[in-house]
């Protein structure tokens, strides 16, 4: 069953040098219990997209339907009620947890906002802390007394307080050390299975997305350039940008060995305030044609529930290097058929 439907969403940020169109016509659906990955590099609009689902980013056009509520056309009062359906976990919990409140207060706060009496809210906060693997005594302490991983647990407890249907996780493990990152990933997976949550998981870390997500959206300069089941996208990426992303994931000795061939010139994201006409990736794309530079490619369907926005019909069979941890070069535990 569909929980979230996003249709032709645009997010504009006014800046001193013009309007930055962070999200330019994005549409997707998210099923109940599904984990959808959203990958892309800094500035591609993935955080703006995530925040717009809570109306925390200015929606310029488009529709967001969550569980039958149209979030984009709702009064502020109703919005507060509907927001309990969708909650967010942030990357930087130093900034998202008020340092002057005790953890118990922080976790109880969403409940208080929704009108739950203080005593009941605080009792529920203790439950939530236990659920994310913290001791109830954590409630009496302040955020700075905790490590990064523990603070992320606090952030997750707070996001769960209102029993949301959808959790938007914006780079929730990017700031964490490897050993702690695995703990938080496991926690998110357990909670999702227990509570039947849907998740939009925003990350630049491809290995984490592949591990957690059933489906993935790849974003480039405000648009979705590819989407599909994670395994298919990983094994045979259709868009040249997805290929570049996967190919850039670290691999054993690659930089050391390819240094002979010479380092390439700096090529980066085009200016989002003045995007090029046509395909935004054309300037970096090894396959770009004249058409790519003049005409914006639209998403078109491929087999296996995949979509790609590319004028070229690149053969899908190109084997991709698998994940950012391909450096481990383990044999694949199972095989799957590329589409």
């Amino acid at each position, binding site marked *: 069953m569909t929980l979230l439907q996003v249709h032709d969403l645009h997010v504009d940020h006014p800046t001193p040098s013009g309007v930055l169109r962070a999200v330019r016509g994005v549409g997707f659906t998210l099923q109940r219990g599904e984990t959808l990955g959203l990958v892309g590099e800094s500035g591609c609009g993935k955080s703006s997209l995530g925040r717009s689902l809570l109306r925390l980013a200015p929606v310029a056009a488009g529709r967001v339907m969550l569980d039958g509520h149209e979030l984009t056309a709702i009064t502020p009062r109703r919005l507060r009620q509907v927001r309990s359906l969708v909650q967010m976990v942030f990357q930087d919990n130093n900034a998202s947890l008020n340092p002057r409140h005790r953890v118990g207060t922080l976790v109880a706060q969403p409940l208080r906002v929704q009108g739950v009496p203080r005593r009941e809210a605080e009792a529920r906060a203790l439950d939530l802390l236990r659920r994310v693997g913290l001791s109830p005594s954590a409630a009496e302490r302040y955020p700075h007394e905790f490590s990064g991983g523990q603070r992320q647990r606090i952030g997750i407890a707070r996001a769960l307080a209102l029993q949301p249907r959808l959790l938007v996780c914006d780079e929730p493990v990017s700031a964490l050390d490897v*050993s702690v990152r695995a703990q938080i990933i496991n926690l998110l997976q357990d909670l999702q299975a227990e509570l039947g949550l849907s998740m939009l998981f925003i990350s630049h870390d491809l290995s984490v997305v592949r591990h957690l997500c059933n489906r993935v959206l790849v974003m480039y300069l405000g648009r979705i350039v590819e989407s599909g089941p*994670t395994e298919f996208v990983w094994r045979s990426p259709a868009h040249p940008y997805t290929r570049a992303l996967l190919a*850039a994931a670290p691999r054993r000795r690659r930089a050391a060995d390819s240094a002979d061939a010479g380092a390439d010139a700096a090529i980066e994201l085009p200016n989002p305030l003045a995007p090029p006409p046509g395909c935004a990736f054309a300037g970096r794309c090894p396959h770009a044609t004249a058409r790519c530079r003049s005409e914006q490619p639209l998403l078109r369907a491929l087999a296996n529930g995949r979509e790609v926005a590319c004028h070229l019909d690149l053969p899908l069979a190109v084997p991709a290097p698998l*994940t950012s*941890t391909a*450096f*481990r070069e*383990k044999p694949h535990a199972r095989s799957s058929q590329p589409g």
Partner: protein
Amino acid sequence: MNAPLLQVDDLRVSLDLRAGRVHAVEGMSLQLRAGETLAIVGESGCGKTLAALALMRLLPQPPANITAGRVRLDGRDLVSLDEAQMRRVRGPGLAMIFQDPIGSLNPVHTIGTQLVEALHTHGPAGVDSRQTWQQARQLLEDVRIPNAEARLHDYPHRLSGGMAQRVMIALALAARPRVLIADEPTTALDVTIQAQILRLLKQLQRERGMGLLIITHDLGVVAEVADRVLVMYAGRMAEQSPVERLFDHPLHPYTQGLLAATPAAGQRPGSPLSDIPGQVPELAALPVGCAFAGRCPCAFARCRQERPQLQPLGGGQSVACFAAQSVSIPGRTLG
């Protein structure tokens, strides 16, 4: 002939905090040869950055102090140098780039001005300014920045993270350093840009025969560029190893845990990741024995009473772990 360019013996750095003195780096030793890449890997707070700053003698003093150890560059001990002498080592001897390139550049001067300043500081006297400007442009071209001439007139805020890191590398190269220390050089960058910067560093190293010391928390970066790896945990050396052996045959349970905690290609998506339980201990409250014992699946009584020392186990690997040492006979060649 291939004597180490940089040799560090038993370096110790302490921090005087309000709560008392903590030992942030406890006995780090390493060797780096010309053209070689050594990675120091560890999680936040393991002392890797403090160790690098100690090599550069850029530690904030107080609270930090080098309490013991020797740092020799081409046989010359750096720890005993005074600040004036050390200033002449920084640049042509050791140069360093940092994680936050934009924050490391001066925001009120153009890139050209900053490069020219670096070239004047380290170059021969009496070079005219037009020549220096040419050299600055050449440096930007060396780090593969397009439109170098135009970029010289830009201010740092105009640069993306990847471009700014290239400029930082150009600045570090201005003095033609023997050893380049790169502290998390790609952590703030996107993965496609990271790949570009790592390739650039490796190529510049090859062109110039520099020793490269990369400090990172990212095993992916290690796999990509390093020849040898030093794994640190809570200020101590846990393991030192050639890069291939570290990934194929990690010896320290901490290294094994780090590798297992990373989602891998062969792993079924959605299956639980093996994590390392618990957290890194506070430096102020390190246990008596092995710092990792509290999180270690292999720990036994001795690990909690006695601190393991780094011991060579053959194959170029050494490890500070009683469990690993007891299964391998010291000195035996593995594989």
